[in-house]
Structure formats: structure tokens, C-alpha cells
């Protein structure tokens, strides 16, 4: 036997799934812009000489309303089984940032035993805040000329290898190889020259700030 509540509930058709939080964000931004336009118009009118009532108009201003946060999804990151190969030197690889600073999480992958002929062990450790600091340290490294790319010199081969996997809110992932012994950092479409320990040190500082131990120790390269 049905009651009126059930009859009403049954009368509602299947409604489309909508990202309502994102839509609220869009509407709030639109309202703020509209208020901004109104405020600008008022300012123009004031500067045209309407001194009388300036105080009244002057009170028209944008509400300090923040945009609601987007739903931040953090992709599940995993360490690749092997390290990325250095890309073939091309001029365009020198330009542009290594990665975008909007990454929401990151995973440091430390590869031990790559040069001993035995099994390779991969140690992962993740961070979920201040990832932009790590990315900024990557992007701060200097671009290389093609000649520099061809003549990269490396030292001390028998050390761990490092890669960082960056995760983005839209589910994208970006793998960046750090090669401090060759003083380079790269992925398949970017390569930078300099102290490639800097992003690793930034990463480790965040891990230590969380009260954990970092598998990367300064100078361990």
C-alpha cells in the first residue's frame, strides 16, 4: 500500500546527474563579475563629477564572497617499474615549465640496485600538500641548449635513481625523472639543467614536516 509520500517520490522522473558544486562556483563567479561591472559603472559616474552622493555610491562594492572550492580529486599514484629514459635532444625541450604547479599530490619513487645486477627495489613515499613547492623547484632549473643536452656529463653511477609522479585534480599524472648525478631533470617533453637535488630536497622537507622519514637523504646521490 502506498502513501502520498511514495506517490510523490514515484512521480519524480530520473533527473540528470549535474556537478552542482561546480555550477555553484560558476554562478558565484558570474555574480561577482556582474557586481564588479556595476561597481565600475558607479565609479565612472562618480568621476564624471557627481560629487553629491559620492559617499552613498562609494559603498557599492563587491561582496567578499569566496568561490566555493572545486571538488579536488587526488589521483591514485603508483611508481612505474622502471625509470624514464632521457628524451632525444630537441630545441623545443628547453622551453616551457617542466610541470604545472596545480598538482595536488605527488609520489617520490626511489629505485635502488639498478646497477648491481640484482633485483631493483622501488621505495615510494607520497605527499598531499605543498606540492607546488616541489614543482617550483623543478621549474626553477635552467633550460638547456641542444648542444648542452648532447654533452651531458654524469658522475657516480652506482646511486639510487629518482622519479616523482605528480597528480592533478583532473586525474592527469606527470612523471618527472630527477637525475642529480647528471645534473638534469626531465620527462618526455622537457629537460632542465642544474642542481636536480633541489626538488628532491623540497619533497623531503615536506615529508619530514609530516613527521615521516624520507628515503631521499641530502647528499645520497
Amino acid at each position: 500500500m502506498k502513501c502520498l509520500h511514495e506517490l510523490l517520490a514515484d512521480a519524480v522522473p530520473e533527473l540528470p546527474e549535474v556537478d552542482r558544486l561546480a555550477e555553484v562556483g560558476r554562478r558565484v563567479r558570474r555574480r561577482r563579475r556582474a557586481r564588479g561591472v556595476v561597481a565600475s559603472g558607479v565609479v565612472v559616474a562618480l568621476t564624471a563629477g557627481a560629487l553629491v552622493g559620492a559617499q552613498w555610491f562609494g559603498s557599492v562594492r563587491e561582496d567578499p564572497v569566496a568561490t566555493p572550492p572545486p571538488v579536488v580529486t587526488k589521483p591514485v599514484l603508483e611508481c612505474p617499474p622502471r625509470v624514464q629514459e632521457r628524451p632525444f635532444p630537441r630545441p623545443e625541450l628547453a622551453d616551457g615549465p617542466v610541470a604545472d604547479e596545480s598538482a595536488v599530490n605527488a609520489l617520490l619513487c626511489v629505485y635502488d640496485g639498478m646497477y648491481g645486477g640484482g633485483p631493483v627495489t622501488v621505495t615510494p613515499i607520497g605527499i598531499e600538500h605543498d606540492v607546488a613547492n616541489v614543482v617550483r623547484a623543478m621549474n626553477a632549473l635552467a633550460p638547456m641548449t641542444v648542444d648542452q643536452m648532447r654533452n651531458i656529463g654524469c658522475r657516480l653511477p652506482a646511486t639510487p635513481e629518482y622519479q616523482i609522479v605528480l597528480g592533478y585534480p583532473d586525474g592527469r599524472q606527470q612523471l618527472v625523472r630527477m637525475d642529480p648525478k647528471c645534473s638534469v631533470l626531465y620527462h618526455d617533453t622537457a629537460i632542465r639543467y642544474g642542481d636536480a637535488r633541489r626538488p628532491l630536497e623540497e619533497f623531503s622537507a615536506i615529508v619530514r614536516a609530516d613527521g615521516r622519514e624520507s628515503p631521499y637523504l641530502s647528499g645520497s646521490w
Partner: protein
Amino acid sequence: MRSDPKSPEGFAEFVAERSGSLVRAAWLLTGDAHKAEDLVQVALVRLWERWSGVEEPGAYARRVLYTTYMTWWRRRWRAERPSAVVPDAVTRDDVEGDAVVRLAVRGRLARLSSRQRAVVVLRFFEDCSVEDAARVLGCSTGSIKTHTSRALAVLREDDVLRTLMDEGVVL
């Protein structure tokens, strides 16, 4: 782990948990999926703007939803009242068909005034008490009782719904 209810993350959780029921109530009010979404968005934007100061976000969103509905109906939808096609002759088999009952309910809702409709949705879909409904719509409890009585009378005029009522459905 739940976020601080007053934080932006708390708002995101509220939207995730409550917007589905808000949009279903809005559909019963408007009879249109787009208008229902629009109505819910207005309520959520207003709620967000006052998020840190609102004590009962669910009650606040509901109040904005219903008062906005009443205002919009007066301004924009007066000429857009939908009317449903109800079968001329109702048989027992028809009554047992869910689709026919759905159409009958929709058709009858469309015949209610905006305030009667709001009262029916509040009282019987959202299970609000007379006092709560009066608070949401900003009127007296006597007014809610009157609108409820008239709305139920309109619902009972329908052959399908009357047949259901004869079979024990409480209308």
C-alpha cells in the same frame, strides 16, 4: 572523516549529500528538470554566500528554495502552468500501472496553486510538520492547514488517485 561543517569542504559535503533531495523537491514544485536545477542552484548559491553564519544549512536552503519558487512563479511562470493528459476512462489495470499513477500525480500537482503545491511537497514529500511548513513558507499554521485541505481535495478529484484512495492509500 567529515570536514569542519563551516569550512568550504563542509559545503561540498552538504551539496553532495543534500542536493539530490532538494532537486527532487524542486522538480515536484516546478514539474521541469531545468527549472528544478535552476531553483536548487539559487538556493545553493545563497547558502554558500552565508555559509559560515548559517546555523541550520538544510533548513536555510529549503527556505530559500521555497520562497524563491513562490517569487519566481509570481513573476515568470504564471503563463507556463503545465497540464497533464489524464486517461478519460480509468480501469483497475490502469490504476495498477505505475506510469498511469505517476501521470495522475503530476497532472494533479499541476492543477494546484503554487502555494498549495509548496504545502503538499513540504508536508507529504519532505514530511514536515504543519509548524515547520509554516516556518518555511512564512505563514500561519492555519494557512498551511487550509492549503493542505484544499490541495488534497484537488488530488482526490482524480479518478486514478480516488481509486487508490478507495484501496487504502492515505490522501
